[in-house]
């Protein structure tokens, strides 16, 4: 089957081993350690963890996950808006990942346990189908970065049913790279950009970033070869001191990106500054519905009562949660006192442990960074 073959070519173990060897050679040649590289995509972290790539990365290289988990960076007031609506009796549709993210005092799952109507959907299309199948108002709590926001935009442009509306918690990645690069003490020398987001925006959006911060950015795909090759290229650029944007995912990404999708995105959404959970203010980091789409905006359709949530004291452990630092790449999950003890996927304290793309959740599931290099087969 051709599609299978194409996929498998990007999982070719021979090229994989060669790329790993090349990465080790280049990293060693830098002559200093560690060299910090950041990626900003939950799917990249998933791929790295799933293929066990960290066990193969050279020790000189520190590949960190930045704020690339859209659920994790959804701020407490945004979650509270959804929870408040649910408690007010409005039916909410949300991604499974978002269900258990704690707000000030409650998550949507908690609201559901007290009788609120909360449906888990796999995408905005399914949320619209739910709305069509019922007559009551249905609010889609829309999280996700630009790759997912375009789907929400497409649906809103295609005449959704009158009872459907969107509570947008969508976010836009390029601005947060600026914030992270500017953080005091940031040692990041290169960025891996998310290939699917770049398929939408084009790699041109990173040119200004590179000019200002003099740090190379390489756009990477999600197969093991894509990630390894992109890292090799990134280390080459770091070694050469060349701040530039390079596209290592040409089969899906061009400089201009997907104009049709961009048109849809910016017709429906406008960028707005706002807080990302744990990261502080990100100018233009949030996507909110434009006035032309006010009729579909849950924030304008409903009177959201947040006072009801203010009374409950926030859980004590939240103060010790290090999600913010972890998402900024300043700390890793193991640095957090709560990781694996009071904070587990079953009893999460912070958002990073709730979302399938959260660093803590992924580390917990795949075993973090244990040193597995030494284990020998007998055969």
């Amino acid at each position, binding site marked *: 089957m051709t599609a299978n073959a194409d996929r498998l070519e990007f999982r070719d173990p021979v090229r994989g081993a060669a790329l790993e060897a090349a990465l080790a050679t280049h990293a060693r040649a830098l002559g200093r350690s560690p060299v910090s590289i950041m990626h900003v995509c939950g799917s990249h972290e998933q791929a790295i963890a799933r293929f066990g790539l960290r066990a193969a990365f050279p020790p000189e290289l520190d590949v960190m996950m930045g704020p690339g988990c859209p659920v994790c960076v959804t701020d407490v007031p945004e979650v509270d808006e959804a929870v408040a609506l649910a408690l007010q009796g409005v039916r909410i549709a949300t991604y499974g990942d978002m269900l258990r993210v704690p707000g000030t005092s409650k998550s949507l799952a908690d609201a559901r346990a007290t009788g609120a109507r909360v449906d888990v959907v796999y995408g905005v299309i399914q949320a619209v189908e739910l709305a069509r199948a019922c007559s009551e108002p249905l609010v889609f709590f829309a999280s996700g970065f630009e*790759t997912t926001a375009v789907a929400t935009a*497409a649906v809103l442009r295609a005449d959704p049913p009158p009872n459907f509306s969107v509570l947008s918690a969508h976010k836009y990645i390029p601005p947060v790279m600026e914030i992270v690069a500017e953080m005091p003490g940031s040692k990041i020398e290169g960025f891996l950009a998310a290939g699917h987001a770049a398929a939408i925006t084009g790699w041109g959006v990173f040119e200004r970033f590179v000019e200002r911060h003099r740090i190379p950015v390489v756009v990477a795909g999600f197969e093991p070869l894509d990630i390894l090759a992109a890292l090799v290229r990134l280390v080459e650029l770091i070694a050469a001191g060349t701040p530039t944007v390079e596209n290592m995912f040409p089969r899906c990404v061009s400089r201009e990106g997907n104009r049709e999708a961009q048109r849809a995105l910016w017709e429906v959404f406008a960028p707005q500054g706002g807080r990302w959970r744990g990261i502080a203010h990100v100018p233009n980091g949030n996507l909110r519905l434009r006035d032309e789409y006010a009729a579909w905006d849950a924030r304008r359709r409903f009177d959201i009562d947040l006072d009801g949530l203010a009374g409950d004291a926030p859980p004590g452990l939240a103060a010790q949660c290090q999600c913010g630092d972890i998402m900024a790449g300043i700390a890793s999950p193991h640095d957090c006192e709560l990781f694996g003890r009071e904070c587990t996927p079953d009893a999460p304290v912070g958002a990073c442990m709730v979302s399938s793309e959260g660093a803590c959740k992924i580390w917990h599931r795949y075993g973090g960074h244990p040193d597995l290099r030494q284990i020998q087969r007998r055969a």
Partner: protein
Amino acid sequence: MCLGVPGRVVTVNGSTAEVDFWGVIKHIRLEICDEPVVPGDYVLNHVGFAIRRIPPEDIGATLAMYDELLGRSRLDDLMAEDIRCELGAAGDDT
């Protein structure tokens, strides 16, 4: 949020297409795809929408790019030399 997955277009019906993902068929919407698609094209699917038409010639080009990257790398040690030979041999089969 969700992982974009590539599939092959089987039929096109206006603004939707039947797409084959390694033998599994899914209906995908085409409103925000960057180019028009015809049966036989590959598309990248994300949450039920095609977000990119993948030109088939680009797949080969990507692999060539990776090989060029490897060729450029200073693979000094013997073990890497073995890998390069294997790679050369594998390249003949594709």
